[in-house]
């Protein structure tokens, strides 16, 4: 026995109550982000020590308006609080976090939580805003009415959690928390009664003039039928600009750094397998993924900023009607947007979607959004096969083809979502009822911490799953080595090369030669690697940007136009990289969904490429 474990406190509150800010203020960077066993819900645990020296573990539970539990997130909150979730300990106490500027709904949640019967504190967060707006809350009376200790907190201010820490020290934490509880699902009549009770308490204890005027005025612009949409498009444009342009210097720096490190390590190591593994497998492979770190950080910077400000709910509001056509909610818009940088953060962002089927449908179509890794492939093929001339009075033909490839991705994503939601599941639309929180200035410390945690999670994954996959691809492309005196590229002799030759007949109907098939295999690790492999297969020794330039005339000579178009179309739909599949596996906690995703995208790519190849062939002869 190591003595008694640290008591565990569960943090519960309505969405937008500043719960996560409070969690950050209490724990700083001492946080662990994982998933609950068996469900796709993020589990955030932290630790801190109270002023009295008591170590405490704290769990940030997903926001909810009630313990009834509708979405997977809310069910986790309910089950943890009630001690029903397998693998989770029953919390020793509950801290309920309330947005003090908006007490009505949370008071009902407090009444529900009280019925559970665990030691509890109510933390009135954002009390500074209440005071600034000339409101006041009679804390003592509120505490007496509710029968639980009530404290004021200002999560975004240093020392703003002192009262809460003191209250936690005074909680009568039980040695053995009882497993039974006094909660049951409330009926509609009980919810009405609880509302009346909450309204009475609020009337007696709080005066708040409301800060809605600012939000109301801003919404008149941001939710305006015309200006609102224009501003949303401008925000999106700025995000894209940032992800594709601002990230470039940092990406070049990382790329150069990794290359330099690879070269330096390569010089130290003796020529041979170990060097090949480390330089070609680890540095080149993992480096190809690490390069996306700046894009991911910039993307999350925008997402966290817009979320904290309260704009994300507005974007969902504006886009809801368009998304409804596919059977999805406005909320699905955000993850799909992120997928233009990379499907991985997009799939992770799908956690904001409450309904599990909506979330899975969104995850399934996210890789159809043209991610940045497909750009090198598009650029190469378009430059090699599409004439550089203007059409329709001033539009560059090459630019139009690129735009068409992006549009094909978006339209097919909407079409697949439609098929999944409306034809396969035949689901009636889930009601769309969502709070539009009052606007709030994001706190820099919170944004910084959020970025730090996201970047850390990405780096950890690059160091584990992606590293393992890269080594596997390296192995397949290297072994067995060509015999002495063999001519032609080494990859030809490897397992990957043999698989390419073996599979070539399968891809012959869509116009792919064996060189393309070989390139598809390492392209599974990271799409843009396909360009380098094509170059290797065509026995070129150039590297970096030169690859594209030297390869281009060869492709123009070797490939027919139908083959090139078929290859482009293939890349619109397939083959999603292995890291995406690994993330889908983790996010859905299932092997089924990544398998379905792989199968449907493969089928879609094959059918579309087949049609393209045949139609183009017929038109050109």
């Amino acid at each position: 026995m190591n003595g008694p474990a640290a008591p565990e406190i569960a943090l519960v509150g309505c969405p937008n109550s500043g719960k996560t800010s409070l969690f950050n203020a209490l724990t700083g960077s001492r946080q662990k982000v994982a998933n609950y066993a068996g469900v796709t819900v993020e589990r955030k645990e932290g630790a801190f020590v109270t002023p009295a020296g008591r170590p405490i573990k704290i769990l940030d539970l997903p926001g909810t308006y009630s313990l009834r539990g509708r979405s997977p997130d809310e069910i986790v909150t309910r089950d943890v609080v009630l001690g029903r979730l397998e693998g989770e300990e029953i919390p020793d106490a509950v801290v309920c976090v309330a947005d003090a500027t908006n007490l009505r709904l949370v008071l009902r949640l407090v009444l529900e939580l009280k019925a559970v019967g665990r030691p509890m504190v109510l933390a009135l967060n954002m009390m500074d805003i209440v005071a600034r707006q000339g409101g006041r809350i009679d804390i003592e009376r509120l505490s007496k009415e509710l029968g639980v200790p009530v404290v004021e907190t200002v999560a975004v201010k240093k020392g703003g959690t002192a009262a809460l820490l003191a209250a936690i020290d005074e909680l009568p934490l039980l040695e053995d928390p009882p497993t039974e509880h006094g909660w049951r699902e409330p009926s509609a009549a009980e919810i009405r009664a609880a509302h009346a009770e909450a309204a009475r308490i609020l009337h007696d204890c709080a005066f708040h003039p409301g800060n809605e005027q600012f939000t109301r005025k801003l919404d008149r612009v941001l939710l305006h039928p015309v200006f609102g949409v224009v501003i949303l498009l401008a925000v999106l444009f700025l995000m894209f600009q940032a992800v594709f342009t601002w990230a470039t210097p940092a990406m070049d720096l990382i790329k150069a750094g990794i290359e330099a490190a690879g070269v330096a390590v390569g010089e130290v190591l003796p020529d041979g397998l170990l060097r090949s593994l480390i330089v070609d497998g680890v540095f080149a492979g993992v480096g190809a993924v690490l390069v996306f770190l700046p894009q991911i950080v910039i993307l999350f910077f925008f997402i966290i900023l817009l979320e904290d400000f309260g704009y994300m709910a507005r974007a969902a509001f504006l886009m809801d009607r368009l998304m409804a056509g596919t059977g999805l909610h406005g909320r699905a818009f955000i993850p799909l947007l992120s997928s233009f940088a990379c499907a991985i953060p997009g799939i992770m962002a799908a956690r904001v979607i409450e309904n599990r089927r909506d979330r899975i449908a969104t995850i399934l179509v996210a890789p159809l959004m043209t991610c940045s890794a497909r750009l090198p492939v598009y650029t190469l093929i378009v430059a090699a096969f599409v004439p550089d001339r203007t059409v329709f009075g001033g539009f560059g033909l090459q630019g139009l083809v690129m735009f068409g490839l992006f549009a094909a991705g978006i339209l097919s994503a909407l079409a697949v979502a439609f098929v999944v939601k409306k034809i396969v599941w035949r689901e009636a639309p889930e009601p769309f009822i969502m709070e539009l929180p009052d606007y709030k200035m994001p706190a820099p410390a919170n944004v910084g911490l959020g970025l730090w945690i996201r970047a850390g999670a990405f780096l950890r994954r690059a160091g584990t799953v992606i590293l393992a996959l890269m080594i596997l691809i390296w192995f397949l492309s290297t072994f067995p080595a060509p015999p002495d005196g063999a001519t032609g590229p080494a990859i030809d002799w490897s397992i990957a090369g043999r698989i390419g030759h073996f599979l070539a007949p399968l891809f012959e109907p869509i116009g792919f030669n064996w060189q393309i098939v070989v390139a598809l295999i390492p392209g599974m690790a990271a799409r843009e690697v396909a360009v380098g492999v094509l170059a290797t297969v065509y026995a070129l020794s150039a590297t970096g940007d030169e690859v594209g330039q030297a390869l281009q005339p060869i492709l123009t000579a070797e490939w027919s136009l139908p083959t090139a178009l078929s290859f482009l179309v293939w890349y619109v739909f397939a083959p999603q990289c292995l890291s995406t599949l690994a993330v889908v596996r983790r996010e859905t906690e299932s092997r089924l969904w990544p398998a379905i995703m792989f199968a449907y995208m493969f089928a879609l790519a094959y059918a579309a490429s087949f049609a393209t190849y045949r139609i183009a062939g017929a038109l050109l002869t």
Partner: protein
Amino acid sequence: MIPTPDKAFADATPAVTATLGRRARGWSGWVTGLAPTDRLTIPWAEMERRLLEMGFVEGARVELLQEGPFGRDPIAVRVDDLTVALRRRDADVVLVAEG
């Protein structure tokens, strides 16, 4: 000032059954009740509780603040001291009276 629910609101019967889903931007009034429509996609008991939890209780003040850009759907509604977005088909469940 935070409004308190008034028993008289709940007892009053509106002359014409009017639903929140059919109101236009700028309209304001109060909730008189919740009633199922034939376009429900989830069980009524669940739908009713979801709306109640978001504050659509009898007597709540409602004001239709904004309409979505496409087909004027969804709508943004101020419910007492909270702003809620919902689709018109879901808002059709909320019975309202002007005033």
